[in-house]
């Protein structure tokens, strides 16, 4: 498969750079190859004409730090939401740059992304079980994963039936299906995203030798489809 080759090039490149994990743009590029889009974005540095990029992406944007030393961007203060003009963007960049200097982290750039409105947050992940190999996980975002542990697992590769049953297993599935007047997301949107990761042709099953662990958190699902707001792909240890 052609996109598998492209993905492997990305992994080779990251390995040569002795990275433990792909940077966010590379991780999202791989998701994109396998059919899970990311928000429209641009990679910029401090000297960028933020106004032009802002016009390109339209409306409000999210600024994210790209640094190989920073594993948990939010905890680090490496994510700024709802920026509306170039002054706000420059100010946010300045704060992140200052923090990086203090903590001795390299800055490889910044990711400016369109801010996605609406939709439900879900999480799709993958890891290797020592006995059974690649395993895919599905959970609802936020407190559902963190506190209620409302998650389901399947051994890869999963079938469409398996994926649907994973969704059925979540206590919070009703929320995705429009409970309490919320947005109703067709099951196929979630099922297709799960298959893109853990199916026979999914990226985690296809690239399971290269990927150690994987987190798409959050993945925003709406009737329009699924969009990966953040993605983390840890390289398999040699």
């Amino acid at each position, binding site marked *: 498969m052609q996109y598998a080759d492209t993905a492997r090039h990305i992994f080779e490149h990251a390995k040569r750079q002795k990275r*433990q*994990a792909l940077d966010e743009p590379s991780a999202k590029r791989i998701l994109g190859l396998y059919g899970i889009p990311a928000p429209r974005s641009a990679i910029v540095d401090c000297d960028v004409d933020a106004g032009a990029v802002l016009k390109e992406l339209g409306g409000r944007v999210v600024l994210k730090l790209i640094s190989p030393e920073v*594993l948990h961007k939010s905890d680090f203060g490496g994510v700024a939401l709802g920026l509306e003009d170039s002054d706000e963007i420059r100010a946010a960049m300045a704060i992140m740059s200052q923090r990086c200097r203090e903590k001795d982290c390299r800055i490889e750039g910044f990711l400016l992304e369109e801010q996605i409105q609406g939709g439900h947050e879900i*999480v799709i*992940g*993958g*890891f290797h*079980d*020592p*006995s*059974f*190999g690649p*395993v895919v*996980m599905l*959970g609802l975002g936020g407190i559902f*994963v963190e506190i209620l*542990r409302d*998650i*389901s*697992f*399947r*051994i890869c590769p*999963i079938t469409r*039936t*398996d994926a649907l*049953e994973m969704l059925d*297993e979540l206590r919070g599935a009703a929320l995705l299906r429009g409970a309490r007047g919320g947005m109703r997301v067709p099951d196929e949107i979630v099922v297709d995203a799960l298959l893109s990761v853990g199916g026979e042709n999914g990226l985690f099953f296809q690239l399971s030798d290269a990927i*150690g*662990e*994987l*987190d798409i*958190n959050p993945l925003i699902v709406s009737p329009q489809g699924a969009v990966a707001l953040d993605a*983390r792909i*840890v390289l398999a240890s040699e």
Partner: protein
Amino acid sequence: MTITAAATAEDTSLHALFHPRTIAVAGVSRKSDGQGNKFIRRLRQANYQGRIYPIHPVETELEGLRAYPSLAQTPETVDYAFVAIPAEGVPAMLAQARGNVRFVQVMSSGFGEGGRGMALQQDLLDAVRQGGMRLLGPNCLGTYSPAAGMSFIDGQLFLPGSVGVLSQSGGLSVDIIRNGEYRGLGFSGVVSLGNCLDIGPCELLAHYLEDPSTRVIGAYLEDIRNGRQFFELLRDAKAAKPVVLLKGGRTAQGLRAAASHTGSLAGSEQVWKALAAQTGSILVDSLEDFINTLVIFESSRSLAPPFDGRTILFGNGGGASVLAADALGKLGIDVPPMSSGTTQALQALGVPAGAGLENPLDVPANILERSKGRIAGSILEAVALREQPGAILMHINMPVIMGYRQGALLDELMHIVLELRRELSPAVRLLLVLRSTGQADYEETRREYTQLAMQAGIPTFLDLPSAARALHALRTYSRFFHSRHA
């Protein structure tokens, strides 16, 4: 450890492990107190039909049989060699077999358990390869095969049945046989696998899936090395035969040190649940539910009709019925109200006042006594005909019922239950719970009637919650089967 002996035999069939025509026994002593002596006595007691060859370096006759100095010198090829000599002597004995042995069961321990005897473990593997045989164990009890008259348990051998079990614990395999047979299960085989240096869970699973005498499979697992293969075997079988899994150490493995969020959420417990969900296997939490689940699968004559879970409860003891309905409800199994037509039909039977003719149906012992139990049959026939339920769960409070005419009422009720099974369509599952207090006065009766009911295709349980969990397992299996074979 992942050392595995090379698969030497071209013929990978395990048939001879269960049906050996010839058995060699090492570990037989003149004083008649060795494990080998016991093994031979059990073979004889169970009327084993093949030939037995004791192996001994110096003795020429043991247990009244001609003994041979080595595994290579028996008059014919040995299908199954039982070896229970001190560990240090095992490799040398096997290395000299010269291809004359198909399967060896090494009972002896001291081959790497707890990290000790690693060198001896390697010697054993080398010897098995050199001797040209397949290895069961070491550190295992071997094969229990009632059809062949092979046993590792003292006492009367039960009749063979259709449950095939593999166990990574010897002690638990004894528990499974004893508890299972007490409950009316019959086995096509039970294999204690020990350290699994050669033959492991996957090969046994593949065997039972193929074996025509095995209809239901049970596995007790602790440490599975070829997990991926085990999963793929189960997945590809698409639940053609029910598989019940009891996994020890699901939580001990704990959480892995994980670099990702997903990794930190995943434990062995979740992955085993995933495996069960994807393969239609039934994952249970206790030995008791392992047996209960095997009971419902083995005694059901046909697993083919879909089971939707709608259950009619019938028994003497209103409170027990209500609790059972709650237990079923918690497991998502419906105890639905009956149609008004059914209720009218029941009223037309002239059931005396005092009986509850809703679902759960509550018919006290004194009312059952008036018709010598026949009212139970009339009620259940009418209900089955009109409601077409997925299951009828009948429970009998033995100490109460046996209080009538020195137990005659119980005999009559059992007769009616057996008769009902013959008349019901296979799509209506009939389950029986013989409730008792555990007092010795009732136990023998309970055991006898359990055997009788099980042979008649009526899964029989000791208590209502167990029956509820078994019904849940049946529904899980049925749903999976029909979703994958649509």
